[in-house]
């Protein structure tokens, strides 16, 4: 009997556990899934909490209940992995031996790594909506905010959902307009990148959207210190940005046990992963997906879902002693909420940057363009997440490979691929 151990019961761990359970009968493979707590957060929902459009109770459910029967779900902490011995060490001297290990423990916020961030003013003038408590506290603050300088700051990449801080700006613009105080608020978006976003075509669109909304863009700002009491962001090259209210996205690290497991991760605790097979570089029987990897893709639910399909196929091939047949192409898509009940959609891969057109084919959601339908798509996704994505069902029309049909501005070679 195959022994499969999955670390993490978030988006990736849950959907992979459920998919693998459908592939193997209980007498063919044992599946153990480990997580340190029992709170599964629908993370895309965090964005809506500060504006009173959602609340933390609505987006948190027990992890165990998302995991199907005949999967041994355990609430405990992982201490380290010994890749050579094929063994996971848990608290209370529990050890798990595996034939295949799947790492899906995502990433953790590390606000304490930025000087002053969690000091005086934290959760009073300085907030983050990247965790439920922060998002809820920010909702309260925003409802009584009467004007001044609102600064949104990404400390350093990589972060989960790299478009979320921009969406926060767009929604804040809408929210403050609805409250009738937009003209009393000076908004600034402060990023370490050299543009509003990384991918050039999307960066231009998104930068333009900030401008249209009167939101100032400050680039190449590497935050060294947050002075909550004095209301100042200070960069390493000694630039200062004053604020009355700061929304900061702290630096992210991989799970701490990854750094304690020799060979598994990089200096930040992200798992060194093959970009196509999703195998850990440390060993062919260790796989990784989602926010936990070091791959040059967005840390986003869509990526995790697409990777999950590939990873399950490759785990099956590996256990059958066959060459791995599935390959991940870096496919990512994200709905970008733009305020006033509209949203935009971007779809891209390792090789193809976000283009305009439609998704998933010539008819569908418009790409790189604001529409009401995209907004409905984003809202609908919460239902799909709990009822289709986590249970491991295939979503009709949505595939792990990035579709080229429907995209405009493709190269000739890419067009040939569509026709093939």
């Amino acid at each position, binding site marked *: 009997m195959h022994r499969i151990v999955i670390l993490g019961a978030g988006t990736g761990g849950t959907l992979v556990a459920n998919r693998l359970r459908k592939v193997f009968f209980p007498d063919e493979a044992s599946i153990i899934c480990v997580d340190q707590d029992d709170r599964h957060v629908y993370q895309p929902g965090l964005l809506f909490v500060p504006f009173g459009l959602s609340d933390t109770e609505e987006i948190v459910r027990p992890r165990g209940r998302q995991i199907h029967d005949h999967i041994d779900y355990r609430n405990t902490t992982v201490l380290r992995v010994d890749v050579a011995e094929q063994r996971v060490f848990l608290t209370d001297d529990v050890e798990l031996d595996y034939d295949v290990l799947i790492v899906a423990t995502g990433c953790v916020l590390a606000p304490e790594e930025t000087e002053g961030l969690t000091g005086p003013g934290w959760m009073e003038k300085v907030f983050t909506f990247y965790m439920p408590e922060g998002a809820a506290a920010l909702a309260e603050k925003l409802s009584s905010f009467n004007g001044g300088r609102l600064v949104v700051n990404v400390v350093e*990449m990589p972060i989960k959902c790299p478009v979320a801080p921009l969406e926060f700006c767009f929604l804040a613009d809408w929210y403050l307009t609805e409250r009738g105080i937009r003209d009393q608020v000076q908004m600034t978006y402060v990023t370490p990148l050299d543009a509003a976003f*990384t991918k050039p075509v999307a960066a231009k669109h998104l930068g333009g959207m900030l401008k249209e909304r009167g939101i100032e863009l400050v680039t190449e700002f590497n935050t060294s210190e947050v002075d909550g009491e004095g209301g100042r962001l200070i960069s390493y090259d000694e630039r200062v940005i004053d604020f009355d209210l700061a929304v900061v996205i702290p630096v992210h690290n991989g799970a701490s046990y990854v750094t304690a497991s020799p060979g598994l991760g990089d*200096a930040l605790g992200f798992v060194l992963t093959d970009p196509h097979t999703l195998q850990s570089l440390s060993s062919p029987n260790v796989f990784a997906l989602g926010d936990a990897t070091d791959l040059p893709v967005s840390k986003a639910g869509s990526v995790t879902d697409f990777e999950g399909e590939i990873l399950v196929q490759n785990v099956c091939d590996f256990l059958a002693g066959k060459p791995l047949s599935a390959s991940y192409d870096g496919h990512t898509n994200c709905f970008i909420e733009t305020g006033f009940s509209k949203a935009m959609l971007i779809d891209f891969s390792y090789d193809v940057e976000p283009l305009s057109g439609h998704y998933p084919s010539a008819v569908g959601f418009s790409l790189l363009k604001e529409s009401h339908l995209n907004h409905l798509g984003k809202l609908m996704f919460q239902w799909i997440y709990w009822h289709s994505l986590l249970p491991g069902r295939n979503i009709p029309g949505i595939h792990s490979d990035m579709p080229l049909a429907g995209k405009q501005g493709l190269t000739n070679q890419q067009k040939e691929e569509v026709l093939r």
Partner: protein
Amino acid sequence: MSVETIGGIDVELNEEGFLLDPSKWNEAMAVELARREGIDPLNDQQWKVVHFMRAEYEAKGAGPSVRVLGKTSGVTIKELYQLFPKGPAKLAAKIAGIPKPRGCI
């Protein structure tokens, strides 16, 4: 893209001045690339970072970000900004002749 003679060798640079072929790099080239960025001459600490960037690139195929540099190079982030003002990872990568660190997304 442009072709220039740096450190006695003809090399191709991209529009931002990064070396297209990192294997052509040598120390004389680093001295010249640093001078173009207003660093003349490179001091011991700056050389330490440049060599560290080369080693990381050769081992992993990509240069480290500032945060990783701060955690692994033995030079703190504050010092890195003193050594390479306006963006240590980018500037040190350019002088080390390796590609601009990708903005992870």
